[in-house]
């Protein structure tokens, strides 16, 4: 049946009408394109009056297809779809032509703009007539949530959801939750101790009836889709029986093997072979590190077992696997530190008294290897002068182009701590100071008052090669003072490198496992950089904290809470709608050639062995259409983007090329039975 199309050309004030002859376009459409019944131009289509105009016409002129030529569909597609459904028309019978962003705003020549607008509108009109009725399918949402990563972001999200009364599984790779925040000493700008504000939250997690904590565990595999994920989790063997362990710590005390702890103590402290990363660790159960354990090495020792009062040690323990059904997933997998060895001219690893920021956090942390004494590598001498080097691996094309966002403030914090604890004078070498948040600038002022020195310039090198007697035995920081316009050599006792935040070494694998995408740098990509910062392209998978990009604790906590809130909404609604823009395979045409099978990163295409054909799981399909254009049999159709619709749009877009191609339409098309 012939479709009845209504065309609405928006003036958008003068935004469009200023460049495009909208009246002309509207009348042209009605006079020249088949199917157009109504064609109007109107001041502001997005206004309620504009929408009513459409609704009225649908009723009175019984239109069954709508074309709105206005701004970008990314702005008002929803608006006009709603208008259609209000008038009882399937929302997918509406098509927009972006004649503002893509015509009036980018074109100077009026007639050219008008011609281009005609093309886009003609494309939309041709296309919309072939649109098919689509209705989003609904699936139930399992009220359980999986939170991956037990840093402050994950902790916050877990607690928010748990407090709302929904069950949460919190999976942490390390033996204890707490993440990087647990390693910090103080937090800027308030200087309250990180542990003091973090550990209560950690024990909340431990105690909460709605939270199941799985530390020393990793997600192996994720299947399913929004509302109905199925995850497989590997619980790594602790060799300590959690049921029996009281966390008394005797095993740790008795363990004869002590090794450098390069995870929690960042390599400047020691731990035993059976260990708990830090005293307030949650859960309290220790872990035996088979790498360094004497028993696992030589088959002798078992000291821990001998002394354990509750026989909780179990050398026979194996990894176990747990399978869960969850409705939503929050990724809060955090970050790694930039490896300062990559900048040899800064002497890290060669010059004893060059530390990284994380090392320094441990250094001045009361629970750290030096009981919070800021000392040189010899473990006793207090530094009299300290230089802080900013942007180590950040804002550096050789390593990471981005700004790590927190280092400036952390540097100020360090400056304060050093001066407070040692009275040493502190010099910060920065490119730009970026104290951009509530009370940050004030903190910067405070440090300037406290007498911290600031040199604006990127440090060229750090060396122990003294050129003058006073440089002897010092670490010399060579930097161009860009404000004074001279090269400076700062002989200091200690240097702190503000290393960049980097995506987790395995961020890309994680992204692949959960079916989300990464930026070039390796940060997880949010659905929209401004308007949807915690959701991802994959429904039901959310991201929170630094895994999405460098940020400080307040932002991280905010994101954790935001992700939790998004999920609460979905759970309380109980079901989610799934975009009907998906691919489907015609079983009659599919021959099971299996070209499409490994093209889908969301594993939405299953091969049915017995039928010998492939099938699309609509719930998993994201509608990208890659399989559609790959299917050699033309067996796959992409809803709302099927070939006929695209051909029609092409045909319309090239309306003015028509004269040169009378014969094309006939080409390869069924001819019907003339000539009888």
């Amino acid at each position, binding site marked *: 049946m012939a479709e009845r199309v209504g065309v609405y050309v928006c003036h958008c004030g003068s935004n469009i009408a200023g460049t495009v002859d909208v009246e002309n376009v509207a009348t042209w459409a009605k006079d020249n394109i088949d199917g157009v019944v109504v064609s109007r131009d109107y001041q502001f289509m997005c206004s309620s009056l504009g929408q009513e105009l459409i609704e009225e016409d649908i009723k009175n002129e019984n239109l069954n297809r709508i074309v709105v030529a206005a701004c970008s569909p990314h702005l008002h597609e929803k608006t006009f779809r709603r208008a259609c459904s209000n008038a009882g028309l399937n929302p997918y019978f509406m098509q927009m032509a972006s004649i503002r962003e893509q015509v009036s705003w980018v074109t100077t020549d009026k007639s050219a703009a008008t011609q281009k607008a005609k093309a886009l509108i003609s494309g939309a009109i041709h296309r919309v007539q072939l649109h098919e009725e689509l209705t989003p399918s609904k699936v139930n949402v399992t009220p359980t949530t999986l939170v991956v990563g037990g840093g402050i972001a994950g902790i916050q999200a877990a607690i928010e959801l748990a407090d709302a009364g929904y069950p949460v599984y919190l999976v942490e790779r390390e033996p204890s939750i707490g993440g990087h925040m647990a390693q910090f000493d103080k937090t800027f700008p308030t200087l309250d101790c990180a542990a003091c504000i973090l550990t209560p939250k950690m024990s909340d997690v431990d105690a909460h009836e709605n939270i199941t904590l799985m530390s020393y565990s990793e997600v192996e595999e994720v299947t399913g889709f929004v509302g109905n994920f199925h995850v497989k989790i590997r619980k790594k063997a602790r060799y300590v029986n959690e049921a029996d362990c009281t966390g008394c710590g005797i095993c740790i005390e008795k363990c004869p093997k002590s090794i450098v702890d390069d995870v929690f103590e960042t390599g400047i402290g020691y731990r035993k072979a059976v260990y708990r990363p830090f005293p307030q660790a949650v859960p309290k159960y220790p872990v035996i590190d088979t790498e360094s354990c004497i028993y696992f090495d030589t088959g002798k020792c078992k000291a821990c077992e001998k002394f354990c009062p509750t026989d909780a040690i179990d050398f026979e323990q194996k990894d176990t696997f747990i399978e869960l059904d969850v409705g939503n997933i929050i990724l809060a997998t955090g970050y790694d530190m930039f490896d300062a060895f990559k900048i040899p001219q800064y002497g890290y690893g060669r010059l004893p008294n060059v530390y990284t920021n994380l090392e320094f956090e441990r250094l001045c942390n009361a629970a750290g290897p030096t009981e919070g004494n800021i000392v040189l590598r010899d473990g006793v001498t207090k530094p009299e002068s300290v230089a802080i080097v900013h942007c180590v691996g950040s804002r550096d094309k050789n390593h990471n182009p981005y700004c790590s966002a927190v280092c400036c403030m952390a540097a100020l914090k360090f400056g304060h701590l050093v001066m407070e604890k040692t009275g040493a004078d502190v010099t910060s070498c920065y490119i730009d100071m970026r104290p951009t948040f509530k009370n940050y600038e004030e903190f910067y002022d405070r440090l300037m008052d406290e007498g911290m020195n600031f040199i604006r310039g990127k440090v060229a090198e750090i060396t122990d090669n003294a050129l003058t007697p006073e440089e002897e035995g010092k670490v010399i920081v060579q930097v161009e003072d860009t404000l004074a316009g001279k090269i400076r050599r700062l002989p200091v006792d200690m240097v702190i490198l503000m290393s960049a935040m980097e995506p987790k070494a395995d961020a890309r694998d994680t992204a692949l496992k959960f079916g989300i995408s990464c930026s070039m740098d390796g940060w997880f990509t949010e659905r929209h950089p401004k308007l949807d910062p915690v959701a991802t392209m994959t429904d039901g998978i959310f991201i929170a904290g630094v895994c999405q990009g460098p940020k400080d604790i307040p932002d991280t906590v905010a994101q954790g809470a935001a992700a939790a809130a998004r999920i609460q909404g979905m759970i309380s609604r109980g079901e989610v709608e799934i975009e009907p823009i998906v691919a489907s395979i015609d079983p009659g045409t599919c021959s*099971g050639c*299996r070209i499409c099978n490994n*093209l889908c990163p969301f594993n939405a295409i299953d091969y049915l062995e017995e039928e*010998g054909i492939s099938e699309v799981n609509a719930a998993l399909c994201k509608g990208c259409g890659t399989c559609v254009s790959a299917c050699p*049999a033309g067996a796959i159709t992409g809803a709302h983007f099927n070939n006929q619709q695209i051909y029609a749009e092409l045909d319309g877009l090239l309306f003015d090329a028509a004269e040169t191609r009378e014969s094309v339409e006939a*080409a390869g098309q069924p001819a019907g*039975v003339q000539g*009888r």
Partner: protein
Amino acid sequence: MTEKAKLALYWAASCGGCEIAVLGIDDKILKVDEAFEIVFWPCVMDGKVRDVENLADGEIDVCLFNGGIRTSEQEYMAKLLRKKSKVLVAFGSCAHEGCIPGLANLSNRKEIFQISYHDTPSTVNPEGIEPQTETETPNGTLHLPFFYDTLKTLDQTVPVDYYVPGCPPEADRIWDAISAILEQNLPAPGSVIGAKSTVCDTCPRTRSEKKIKKFYRTWEIIPDPDICLLEQGIICAGVATRAGCGALCPSVNSPCIGCYGPTDGVEDFGARLLSALASVIDSDDPEEIQRIIEDGMPDPAGTLYRFGLAGGLLRRNILQTNGQKKSQAMGSTVSEV
């Protein structure tokens, strides 16, 4: 007894294989004779164009037309038979999508003449004579058809009711088509009388997920007899080719070359196959991808469009003579048929 239905068979630009194929249906040919009165079939019985012209319009019930349209005579005959037939069937790959003769669309009249009348080793043509549309002889003017730059499929010249694919169509498929016509249970006009799915459906080889690191030409490797040829890097068009042949080639370790053409609704066989093959190339590095493609497919047009060039969306390569019309190319005599 009631009058038998009238059947015509004609060949235009084709090798004649389709004609043989019709006879290849063995004794069933007698059934055909029972059912039809054959009014015109130059290949097997005498007949004059005039006889056809004398028929009333639509008097022929079914015309099986094989071969593409390469000359003005063929175009005339196509139009004539269209006029006289109730049901016109594009029979075989040539009429359907151009087939091998269509590959000449990668060239043009001038080049084709140059090769066939001058350059081929077997040609002796010292005077360099080329076919003329008109030749004066004592007994008057002789006419030869005009040879077009571009070979057209039947439906690019006249409306076609049905298509029977294949080079040539398999005997059974031919019989299926004929019986469909006899029993009057034909599909919707304009459709292809054939299977819905592709050759893989009937291919005995085992298939798994596909990843191609290198395309092999058939002589470069001895393929494993049980595994999908494409997975072994041999360009097999079976994935994109309409079933109906019973996977003859793959079952004898030779890749499908696509003679049955595309499945329903596919407008360009070559592009369809192109997309499928490219999608499973196992590399994300542009240089490597280029290497894989250029080493593995030196002649893309010939590989992807062996049968479907003339019937495809582009139909031919860029024409150096810039689409010069016959009128420009040769006076304006029309009566060379």
